[in-house]
């Protein structure tokens, strides 16, 4: 293994920045879900990388928990997309105005 911890951390920072860009710019519900996925994966990469270099099994265990919870989050998010699409016939979040005061 020749790569060092800093390399993995920098890749993770790049993925986090791309995800935040997606959340800030895109107004499409599905694209925002993509951005959230990218951010969660950046966090998982950090967990496993730090767990490898400590070394401690806690990093991998937490990453497994994180992956499982992310799966639940995506299931709920996609069903929300389907419900919102059925109500508004659109995936633009600017059109979802039911909760707007």
């Amino acid at each position, binding site marked *: *293994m020749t*790569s060092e*911890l*800093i390399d993995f*951390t*920098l*890749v993770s*920072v*790049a*993925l*986090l*920045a*791309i*995800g935040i*860009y997606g959340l*800030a*710019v*895109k*107004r*499409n519900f*599905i694209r925002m*879900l*993509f*951005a959230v*996925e*990218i951010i969660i*994966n950046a966090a*998982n*990469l950090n967990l*496993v*990388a730090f*767990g*490898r*270099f400590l*070394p401690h*099994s*806690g990093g*991998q*265990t937490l*990453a*497994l*928990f994180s*992956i*499982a*919870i992310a*799966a*639940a*989050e*995506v*299931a709920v998010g*996609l*069903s929300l*997309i*389907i419900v919102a*699409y*059925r109500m508004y016939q*659109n*995936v*633009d979040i*600017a059109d979802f105005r039911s909760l707007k005061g």
Partner: protein
Amino acid sequence: MADAVFLALSVITIGSAIAALEMRSLIYGSIALMGTLGGIAGFFFLLDAPFVALFQLAVYVGSIAVLILFTVMLVKRELIFKKIEDKRRKFAGIGLMLIIMVSLGAIFLDSGIKTITTDEPTVNFRDIGTDFVTYYWPALILMGLILASSVTGALVLARREDVENDQRIN
């Protein structure tokens, strides 16, 4: 120093993350997202964590990406290809992205992380299994409950009541 495999994986991961957000078609975007998730699994293999890597491949690439693909296909055709964003917001977003990348990258490069190397043996996946059933068992049960409730919630949310009523009338 990073080796060739690492560099190739980083290019694939970061490139397909950008493609997932910027591709015109949502279907190609979700296939690019699959590339990002697969690239992260490759990083897990590089980090000597094959168990987490296979879990990532099974859960993310195998189920979540396919679920997203099917949801995209349920959306109207013209919405899949429509890009909704304004230019000023996009430039502001790119600026925010560069600021985060440069500042966080500078912080990490300046910190003590740079000097950390390891030649210790890798974590055995049996340790992970032992962790799950000894120290983390309440969290494991809680995670099972959360998964069950979220899947039930997703099914209840996505249920079509109008179809059911139609069938009842017929």
